[in-house]
């Protein structure tokens, strides 16, 4: 189902986003590149603190001080968003690219009705009159599975359950028919049963509109069901990327392998999961050489000296590792 287009909808090139804090510079995103074609879903995975959210906010130009985009390009249909002005970015936000946040309990304004919060998008990005906007909001709410939609425009967020609120958030994100949705852990805060409903809804909405999506998650299981491509982030760097099937079946980077091994297997009722040993290092002073060295079972002398670069492993897969796993390797 992957449509590999020549022309990428979004091309991120060597993105660097740093936070200048009192205790040093946090290189949260340090040279990240990837492409997303029209209609594609890209999974952006990695442990917490890897820089996934910062990538998402960088694309929307929503990095606030002390953060700053230090370099690179974010090309939306060839237009560089890094150098675009705030006025242009505001046209793009919500209209070309929209975002769904992790926690639906906090991403809606508690003091505005659902209708007001939906209407805001259409007032910003369309010329519709009040009646037409209202109609569009009702239709959108219905399409994300909210019944009695017309009545509920007047309701406040606290009158909805968590899953319902995330449906509202998705409705808001879809309202101006954006080309790209950035979903930052959209189901992490929800009950397991509701998670799959929401994911299904998102896939449906994206497909119906031919939109693309960046699905940010720490959960490889979720992303392997949804995404066409996967990009794995570790300490602000891409350590591996590739087509979903290839990456899951034959991971080349030991970190990807570790993430896959820690997925709970519903068939295998083994209670203890294989977690990646150790913890994510402090980004403010990363070790020389490979960032994953201290946790890597394959590390050798070279890994402490030289930083591995992203290199093609096969037709679709790239990994940044001196000693990548070969198909058939067990660890």
């Amino acid at each position: 189902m992957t449509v590999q287009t020549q022309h990428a909808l979004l091309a991120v090139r060597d993105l660097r986003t740093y936070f200048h804090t009192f205790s040093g510079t946090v290189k949260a995103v340090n040279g990240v590149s990837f492409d997303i074609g029209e209609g594609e879903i890209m999974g952006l995975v990695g442990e917490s603190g890897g820089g996934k959210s910062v990538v998402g906010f960088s694309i929307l130009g929503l990095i606030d001080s002390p953060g700053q985009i230090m370099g690179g390009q974010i090309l939306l249909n060839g237009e560089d968003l890094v150098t675009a002005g705030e006025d242009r970015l505001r046209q793009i936000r919500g209209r070309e690219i929209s975002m769904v946040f992790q926690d639906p309990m906090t991403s809606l304004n508690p003091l505005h009705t659902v209708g007001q919060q939906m209407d805001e998008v259409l007032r910003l990005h369309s010329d519709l009159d009040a009646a037409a906007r209202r109609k569009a909001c009702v239709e959108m709410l219905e399409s994300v599975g909210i019944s009695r939609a017309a009545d509920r425009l007047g309701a406040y967020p606290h009158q909805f359950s968590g899953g319902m609120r995330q449906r509202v958030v998705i409705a808001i994100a879809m309202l101006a028919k954006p080309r790209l949705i950035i979903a930052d852990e959209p189901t992490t805060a929800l009950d397991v049963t509701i998670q799959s409903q929401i994911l299904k809804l998102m896939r449906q909405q994206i497909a119906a509109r031919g939109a693309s999506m960046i699905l940010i998650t720490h959960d490889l299981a979720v992303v392997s069901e949804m995404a066409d491509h996967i990009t794995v982030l570790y300490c602000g760097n891409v350590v591996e990327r590739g087509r979903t099937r290839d990456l899951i079946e034959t991971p080349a980077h030991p970190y990807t392998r570790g993430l896959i091994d820690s997925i709970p297997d519903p068939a295998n009722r083994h209670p203890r999961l294989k977690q990646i040993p150790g913890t994510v290092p402090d980004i403010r002073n990363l070790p020389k050489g490979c960032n994953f060295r201290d946790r890597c079972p394959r590390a050798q002398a070279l890994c402490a000296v030289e930083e591995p670069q992203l290199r093609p492993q096969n037709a679709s897969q790239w990994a940044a590792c001196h000693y990548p796993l070969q198909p058939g390797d067990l660890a």
Partner: protein
Amino acid sequence: MGKAGAFPDPADKKSQYSDMLGYLIKRLIQMLLVLWIVSLVVFLMMSFTGDPVFMIVPIDATDDQIQQARRILGLDQSLPVQYWIFISSLVQGDFGQSYVFRQPALALILERMPATVEMVLVAMVLAVVVAIPLGVYAGANPNGRLSRIIMAGSLLGISLPGFWVGMVLIYFFAVHLGIFPSSGRGETGEVFGVRTSLVTWNGWHHIILPAVTLSLATMAILLRMTRAGMMEVARQDYMKFARAKGATRQDVLYKHGLKNALIPVVTIFGLQLGDLIAFATITETIFSWPGMGKLLIDSIYRADRPVIVVYLMLVALIFVVINFLVDLVYTLIDPRITLK
């Protein structure tokens, strides 16, 4: 879909109204209770502070005359009886006569109330108009240079005593520059039967300095509350979500942020409003403003007990009413707060 129960059903309208009525009745009883307690406190306070008889009788009065005055004033009765007389006449709307002016005490106060209220209103509007934008700015840019200046200024506003500020303003604007009068109320006009100086140029000319003096401390407090609230709110996801929709920074701050930061600001606003109306005494004295605060000071000097008593009861009433209004405003701001 589940959770439908969380939505108000049209059929619930009736029970909503009876809820509301129940709330109002409960609130009214609470208010009366507060006023009753205040009446007790005020009465006891008055009974133990000096004998007003000597303020009334001539200096050369005989013992007989003094005794007679006592009887007329009811001061020869036991405390409980005195309180009974006091409270039952209050309930009947008889608030007593001023010893000094020989006029009904309430009328005396009400006559001076518009002067105080108009000055306080100007002061509060000024405070809000300055404090809110500066507070929003300082909260949204906590590390900015301008924010630091604003915060330093607000610290001055809180710590400088009102009488000193008033005197400096008089010296500079009235004595030195001569662009504002130093004292008194200007010409007044009548609006809905109330005499106010807010309808004449001369009135405005006179009210500016005292109103500014009165507003500074409140302005500083409201500014700091707004800033603290905005700093808290700025971290919330819905602020970033609003920006991700394409809203301007300004819209996000004011439409999404400010409303969420407003509850503590409204609380303080209510308290300050009551406080200024009740105790604008110092400012009124400095500017010879003929308001009720000045009447209070004069009455205290002259031990004009009925006026003091009615004044304090009125102040209690004002606070109780403002408190109620503030609670109503909460429900307008936040749909999660209901009247219960």
